């Protein structure tokens, strides 16, 4: 797939995140200002989780001053095998992503009956 030259010039920055856990899930909250649903890709691959987000650019005149460039976001996290990849849920609101990573039901040890021969 051909990528526009401009996107290669834009170095992605790591978004700020909070990570929480309870007995049901891991909750990851990330600041993604300027990112809409269409610009966000979340990928769980093996033991890594990758967030990639493109900012929606607002076409404007030439910026005479700027404190920052509108950078895209990218960050990779390690995830435990106990996370159920099929039930990951994401909610994006007001530039903040809530990513729910549910834990699999704990494996209950199986008792093996011993028969006396």
């Amino acid at each position: 797939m051909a990528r526009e030259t401009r996107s290669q010039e834009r170095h992605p920055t790591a978004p700020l995140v909070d990570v929480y856990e309870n007995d049901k899930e891991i909750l990851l909250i990330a600041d993604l200002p300027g990112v809409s649903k269409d610009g966000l890709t979340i990928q769980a691959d093996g033991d890594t989780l990758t967030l990639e987000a493109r900012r929606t650019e607002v076409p404007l005149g030439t910026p005479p001053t700027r404190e920052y460039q509108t950078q895209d976001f990218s960050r990779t996290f390690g995830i435990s095998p106990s996370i159920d990849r099929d039930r990951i849920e994401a909610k994006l609101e007001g530039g903040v992503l809530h990513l729910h990573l549910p834990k699999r039901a704990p494996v209950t040890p199986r008792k093996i009956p011993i028969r006396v021969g």
Partner: protein
Amino acid sequence: MFGYRNDFDRTLAIMDQLRRRMDRAFDDVDRSGAPEPATGGVPRVRFHDAGNAFVLQADLPGVREADLSLSLEQDVLTLAGQRRGDAPEGYAAYRQERAPFRFSRSFALPAKVDPEKTSAVLEHGVLTVTLEKAPEVKPRQIAVRVG
């Protein structure tokens, strides 16, 4: 040697020093490519001259509309607000990079604007303020006549 004549001069000198220090700080930020946190304690802004209007954009992820205030006094625009803490109940925190914050920033506009024709939109955590320039400072096309 040049000495400070009075308190007023000294104040100006201090302000000048401060300004130089600020300029250096922004130079550091502008160095693209280096990873940097997306949001600091104060919102970062972009300021554009779009011809007929000035456009100011600020990154405000997780800031509610009700917690924002925007005021225009003469040619000074002040943006103030806060982001409340959003830590969920009943969870243990492993990593907390996103802090709640309060801020207030003022910007001296480079030209007169029409206070009646300003608008502000908060979308995807980015505030965009559009300030239409006063008619007398809007760019004008000047026709060139062949004499």
